[in-house]
């Protein structure tokens, strides 16, 4: 585990010129213009949307109950209050969390924000009204029994069982606090309107083009935000975003750019560009369709995982694609992730690739799949989908397996997975808050995201055990066992490589600290301009 933490720290700090944070005094003022690497989101309602386009556009306008520490966003465990006054200790054997809510917080319309608003927002997320869509509602319903506001300053979450997954889940960056009287009147209001209590007040939205905000003079974190305002411009085309940063039409793209863009900007602008990099909480996974032969045979699935040279390939791939870290199905920076030593005990992660490939060939022969050929389903997105896909095709050729890549646009790609019309799919999964206990749900049979088409009671039992485990040491061991079971014993699915977040930005942008997710720490409150 230490190795991984060191690796991440090194990645974060050492690779490029990082502006110092501690020795600089923030200067207030200025307008930050940034590009949002997407088309405009379907709606502004964080409770119903999944796309980061929503977060990058409207997070500066909203508050959340708790969040990842904005001064330490690289951490996977440092949660702090936003609207609460103190992080609570659970009571009732870990099943009850009582939050005290800040006094004097107001919404943009001047209404006071109370515990009722927090409870109403969380109730709408967890138990949405009839006809209201809550993208993550079912995740919360598995954990939360009841949310109540016994008085104007207190919100209480009653859980169904004690679990370490709860607090990280509560720090969900989409969990904006809305005004109760508005939700009660029209639960769809926030889809088309913006009105929060965050560091910025909403100014206007040019449909599909840009969104503008101005400093909230009544913001409750005193001294923040530093900026007078911001403009977020939707720019889905990478070349446009790079050109915009180069010409200073925009200062930063918070999602991330590939290595080639980083190098181009550094080459053209030198010290005017700073770069931060981090392991990214998005992983390139492979799912095998158990309903298609010979992928119903664990030996075949294991053989395909064994033939991938992750340790040798990841450093080379990182030069051209947004991938870097080798890890299991748990984000490498998490305390629950397998250490390098633990990982190297699992098939597919052995340090000796020749030994792995010899074993892969043996398994294929044993399974009667010597002349295996199949189609790898992939999504029509360059970074890193197609890069990883092409590399995988080459890796499998090393054990004599002939693979062609079938690249489909997002809609048909999903449809093929849902209908089971594929053999092996490259299916990257991105998460916001690092919350491995919930994140690995995607690998559990029955999960809406598991397109492996299999039942496995033993795996489900293993997962439920670690979901209920509260002892960190035991939970780590159980998670490693779970990973080994998923990726080696049954090889239902496997992790190929974790993504690498690269943010090249104008050096006058200060106070930005990279996190392992492009979803978190997006309220812009701590950002300032040194112009």
């Amino acid at each position, binding site marked *: 585990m230490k190795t991984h933490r060191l690796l991440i720290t090194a990645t974060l700090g050492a690779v490029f010129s990082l502006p110092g944070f501690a020795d600089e005094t923030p200067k207030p003022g200025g307008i930050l213009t940034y590009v949002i690497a997407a088309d405009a989101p*379907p709606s502004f309602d964080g409770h119903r949307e*999944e796309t980061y386009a929503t977060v990058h556009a409207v997070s500066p306008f909203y508050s959340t109950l708790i969040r990842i520490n904005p001064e330490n966003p690289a951490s996977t465990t440092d949660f702090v209050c936003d609207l609460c006054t103190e992080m609570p200790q659970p009571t009732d054997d870990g099943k009850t969390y009582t939050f005290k809510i800040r006094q004097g917080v107001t919404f943009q319309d001047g209404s006071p924000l109370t515990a009722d608003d927090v409870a109403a927002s969380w109730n709408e997320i967890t138990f949405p009204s009839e006809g209201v869509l809550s993208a993550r509602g079912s995740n919360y319903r598995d954990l939360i029994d009841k949310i109540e506001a016994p008085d104007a300053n207190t919100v209480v979450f009653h859980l169904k069982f004690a679990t370490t997954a709860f607090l990280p889940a509560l720090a969900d960056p989409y969990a904006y606090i809305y005004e109760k009287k508005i939700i009660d009147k029209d639960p769809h209001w926030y889809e088309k309107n913006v009105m929060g209590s965050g560091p910025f007040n909403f100014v206007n939205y*040019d449909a599909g083009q840009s969104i503008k905000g101005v400093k909230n003079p009544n913001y409750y974190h005193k001294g923040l935000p530093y900026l007078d305002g911001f403009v977020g411009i939707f720019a889905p085309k990478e070349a*446009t975003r790079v050109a915009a940063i180069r010409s200073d039409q925009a200062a930063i793209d918070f999602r991330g750019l590939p290595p080639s863009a980083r190098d181009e900007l550094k080459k*053209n602008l030198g010290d005017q560009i700073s770069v931060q990099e981090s392991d990214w909480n998005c992983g390139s996974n492979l799912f095998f369709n158990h309903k298609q032969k010979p992928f119903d045979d664990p030996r075949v699935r294991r053989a395909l995982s064994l033939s991938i040279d992750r340790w040798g390939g990841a450093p080379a791939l990182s030069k051209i694609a947004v991938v870097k870290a080798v890890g299991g199905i748990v984000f490498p920076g998490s305390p629950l992730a397998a250490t390098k030593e633990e990982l190297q005990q699992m098939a597919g992660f052995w340090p000796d690739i020749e030994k792995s490939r010899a074993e892969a060939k043996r398994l294929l022969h044993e399974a009667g799949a010597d002349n295996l050929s199949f189609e790898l389903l992939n999504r029509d997105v360059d970074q890193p989908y197609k890069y990883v896909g092409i590399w995988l095709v080459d890796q499998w050729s090393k054990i004599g397996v002939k693979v062609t890549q079938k690249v489909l646009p*997002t809609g048909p790609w*999903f*449809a093929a997975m*849902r*209908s089971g019309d594929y053999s092996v799919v490259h299916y990257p999964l991105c998460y916001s808050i690092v919350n491995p206990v919930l994140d690995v749900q995607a690998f559990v049979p029955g999960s809406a995201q598991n397109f492996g088409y299999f039942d496995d009671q033993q795996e489900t039992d293993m997962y439920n055990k670690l979901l209920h485990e509260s002892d960190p040491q035991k939970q780590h061991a159980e998670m490693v066992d779970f990973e080994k079971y998923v990726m080696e014993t049954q090889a239902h699915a496997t992790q190929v490589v974790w993504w690498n977040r690269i943010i090249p930005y104008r050096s006058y942008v200060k106070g930005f600290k990279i996190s392992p997710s492009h979803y978190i720490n997006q309220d812009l409150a701590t950002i300032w301009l040194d112009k």
Partner: protein
Amino acid sequence: MHRYIVSRILLTIPTLLGAAALVFVLMRLIPGDICLVRLGSGGTSFSTQALAACHAEIGIDKPWLLQFANFIWGLARGDFGVSMWSGKPVIQEIATRFPVSLEVAVIATLIAISIAIPLGTISALKQNSWIDLLVRTVSIAGIATPAFWLGILSILLVLDVSQAITGHPWMPSIDYVPLWKDPIRNLSIVMLPAITVGYRYAAVSMRMTRSAMLEVLREDYIRTARAKGLLEKIIINRHALKNALLPVVTVIGIEFAFLIGGLVVTEQVFNLNGIGRLMVLAVQNQDYTLTQALVMLVVTIAILTNLVVDLFYAWLDPRIRLS
């Protein structure tokens, strides 16, 4: 004339109905599901209940026939419904983007006409001279160059040149402002894409002007005009060019109609929030209502442009009678 126009307008009804049926069926034949794209395109988790709720909310859980009937009934009332993606009225979504595409299309057309007709005419008059060779090379290059490549190259060129001259790379703003709000900034934004598109457009029209002029210049009436001693200027402008413009007008009309909904790549490259980009987004997201409305819009514009071209024919060549 009036009867002709009315009959042409009435003829648009079956055309629009055919287009409506075609786009309705085609969209639904494409594998995929807007809710899957919406809920899971970021790779994040969602539940099967969320998926079902999404289907119910946008009405794609209803039978096709009912969906089609609703679509046609909406069309008849001028109601295109709401976008399945954004939940906003389709009319509103289109109205925001239409002026952007229209402005680029109009400027590109003006650029194309002002380049194509003079150069095409000169090229024909100086057939096989070095001028003709140059014009033909420029026009063939324009036809052969993909718009996206030209767009990216032009941005890079502007960036590199401005950096070399001033030390600071410059490019037009990527945040569009309407003409009436800030004309100078607006023109600086739309000029580069309009030139990029206009070049290709001009290349096609230039070749058409040249070949039409060459054909007309060999006609008996031109020979007669020259024989009776008319000035060459009058022969070219009044007799040759006017007749040669018939096929050129057709090309300009077709290209203009195409530009309204077809600036897909150019709008992406220059980050213009126009109809082309909206069309791509609608198809990618499998937003049936929005795609259907956009196709109807493009079909209507194509029909109207053809009508205008036909009326223009009559003005250019009095032998043509519209009846």
